[in-house]
C-alpha cells in the first residue's frame, strides 16, 4: 500500500474570519514497506497531513491516493471505512481513547466495527496483546487499572487488532520514561519488520536516525524535503534553520568533522560511531 498525494491542500475554517491554510499543495509519495518519519515544527501541518491518510480529514483541494482508494475534494468518498481498516492511526496520547470495562472488549472494538466476528476478534486480541509486550492475563482486567505506559500499549493493540497495512503514529513516545520509549520504539521496529508501512510523526531526531529509513520535512504546511534519512540529515544548517535539532550522533559527527575528523555522516548508532572514531584515532 503506497500513498501518493497530488496538490493536496487543506484549509481550516474556509470562508470565515478564522481561515487558515494547514496544508499547501503537498506532492509526495510514501513507498510500501517503508519506515517513514515526518518531522517539522509544531504547527507545520504534520498532524493535518496524517489525518488525510485515514480520511478523517478530506482534502480541500487536490487528492490523496492510498492503495486503490483515491480521495479528493470533488467526490464524496464512499469507502472511508475500508480505508480506515487499511490504515491504522494512533493519535497522540492514545490512552485517552480507551473506554471499555475490560481490555479484551476494548481491543475487539475496532475489528468488530469492521465486521469481524466476536470469536475471531477475541483470537486476534490474544495475538496482539502479546505483540505489545503484555500477556493474556491482562485481557480480563480493566484498562483503567494500568499504568500510563501500559494503557498506551493497549490502545496501540486496539489499532493493531484491525490488522492495518499502514500504521501511522503521532508522537507515540510522548511522556514515556526512557525504558518505556525504548520498548515502544522496538515494538514499531518489529511491526515494520512484519512488512507493514510505518509512518512516524516525531520530534525526536534520535529516533528518526536510529529507526527510520525515509524522512519527510514539513514547514508551514508544505513538504520541503523528502528522502533518505542520511541524506536529509547531512544538511545540518537547513534543519537547524527550521528549528529542528540534529540527532546527538549526527551533531557530534558534524562538530568533529569541522575540527578535522573525517567521519561518515550517515552513521546511525553509537557502536558504529565508536568504531569510526577508533579507526581515526588509531590512525
Amino acid at each position, binding site marked *: 500500500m503506497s500513498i501518493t498525494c497530488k496538490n493536496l491542500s487543506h484549509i481550516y475554517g474556509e470562508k470565515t474570519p478564522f481561515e487558515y491554510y494547514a496544508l499547501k499543495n503537498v506532492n509526495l509519495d510514501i513507498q510500501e514497506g517503508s519506515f517513514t518519519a515526518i518531522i517539522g515544527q509544531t504547527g507545520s501541518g504534520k498532524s493535518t497531513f496524517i489525518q488525510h491518510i485515514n480520511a478523517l480529514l478530506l482534502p480541500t483541494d487536490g487528492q490523496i491516493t492510498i492503495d486503490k482508494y483515491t480521495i479528493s475534494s470533488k467526490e464524496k468518498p464512499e469507502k472511508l471505512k475500508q480505508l480506515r481498516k487499511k490504515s491504522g492511526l494512533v493519535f497522540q496520547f492514545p490512552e485517552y481513547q480507551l473506554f471499555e470495562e475490560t481490555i479484551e472488549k476494548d481491543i475487539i*472494538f*475496532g475489528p468488530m*466495527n469492521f465486521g469481524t466476528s466476536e470469536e475471531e476478534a477475541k483470537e486476534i486480541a490474544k495475538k496482539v496483546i502479546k505483540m505489545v509486550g503484555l500477556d493474556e492475563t491482562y485481557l480480563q482486567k480493566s484498562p483503567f487499572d494500568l499504568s500510563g505506559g501500559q494503557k498506551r500499549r493497549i490502545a496501540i493493540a486496539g489499532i493493531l487488532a*484491525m490488522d492495518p497495512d499502514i500504521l501511522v503514529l503521532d508522537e507515540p513516545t510522548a511522556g514515556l520514561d526512557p525504558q518505556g520509549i525504548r520498548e515502544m520504539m522496538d515494538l514499531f521496529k518489529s511491526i515494520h519488520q512484519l512488512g507493514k508501512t510505518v509512518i512516524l510523526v516525531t520530534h525526536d531526531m534520535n529516533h528518526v536516525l536510529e529507526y527510520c529509513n525515509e524522512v519527510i520535512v514539513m514547514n508551514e504546511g508544505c513538504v520541503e524535503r523528502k528522502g533518505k534519512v542520511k541524506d536529509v540529515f547531512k544538511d545540518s544548517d537547513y534543519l537547524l534553520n527550521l528549528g529542528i535539532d540534529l540527532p546527538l550522533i549526527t551533531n557530534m559527527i558534524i562538530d568533529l568533522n569541522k575540527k578535522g575528523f573525517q567521519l561518515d555522516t550517515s552513521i546511525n548508532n553509537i557502536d558504529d560511531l565508536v568504531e569510526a572514531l577508533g579507526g581515526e584515532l588509531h590512525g
Partner: protein
Amino acid sequence: MDNMTFGKYIPGNSLIHRLDPRLKICTVLIFLIAVFFDVGFIGYGILAIYVLVCILLSKIKVSHILKAVKPMVFMMLFLMIFNIFLLKTGDVLVKIGSISIYSGALLQTAYIFIRLVLIITLTTLMTSTTKPLELTLAIENLLNPLKRFHFPVHELAMMISIALRFIPDLLDEAKRIMKAQASRGADFNEGSFMEKIRSIISLIIPLFISAFQRAEDLANAMESRNYNPEAKRTKYKILSWQTTDTLAMSVSIIVCVSVVIMSFM
C-alpha cells in the same frame, strides 16, 4: 463544530466594544422586555433601527451577525407553521379544505419572527463585542447584592469563567476522541441504532474521564497557587462606569420605554 464562529468574541475597539459589560447586559434585558410588548410594526421598526445602529457602531459586518439567525430558521419555521394553522383570531383569509388561515394568526406569526430575530441579533452583538470574562465579571457585579443572603456569587462567577475557559479545550478533546474512534471504525453518522449508541459511548466515556482529569489538575494548580475561595482576595479586573455608559444606557432606556408607551397610545 467549525462553524460555531457566530457569537464568538470578535476583537475590536469600537464604541460598542468599549461599553461597560454591565450596561450591555442590562440593555439586552430591557430590550427583551420591550420586545415582548405588542408594540406594533412601527414599534418593531424603531427597535430594528436601534439594533442596526448598534451593529453599525460596532463595526462588525451585519452579515456576520445575521449568520447567527441561520441555525434558528428551522425552529422558527416550525413555530410559524404551528402558529399559522392553530391560531384562530381575526378574519379568515384562506380556506383549504377543512383548514383555514386567519389574519390574526399571520400577524402573530410575523410578530414572533420579528421578536426572535431582534433578540438573537442583539444578543449576538453583545457576545461578539464583549469578552466572556467581562460578561462574567458583569454578572458577578450585578449579582453582588445577593451576597447578603449568602449566595455564593464569587464561586458562581469563578465557575462560569472556568467553564468558558475550558469549553474550547473540551470541544477540541471531543473532536480528537471522535476522530480516534472513527479511525477504529466507529460510525457517528451512519450504522444501526445500536452501533450509533456504541459509538457515542466510545466518545462520552473518554470525554468524561478526561474532563475529570482536567478538573483534578486544575484544582491542584489553583490550590497550589494559594487559591482559597473563602479567604479574602484582591481583584485585578474591575469595571469602571464612564459617562459614555450613562449616555448609552439613557438612549437605550428612552428608545425601549417610548416604544412601549407608544404601543399603549
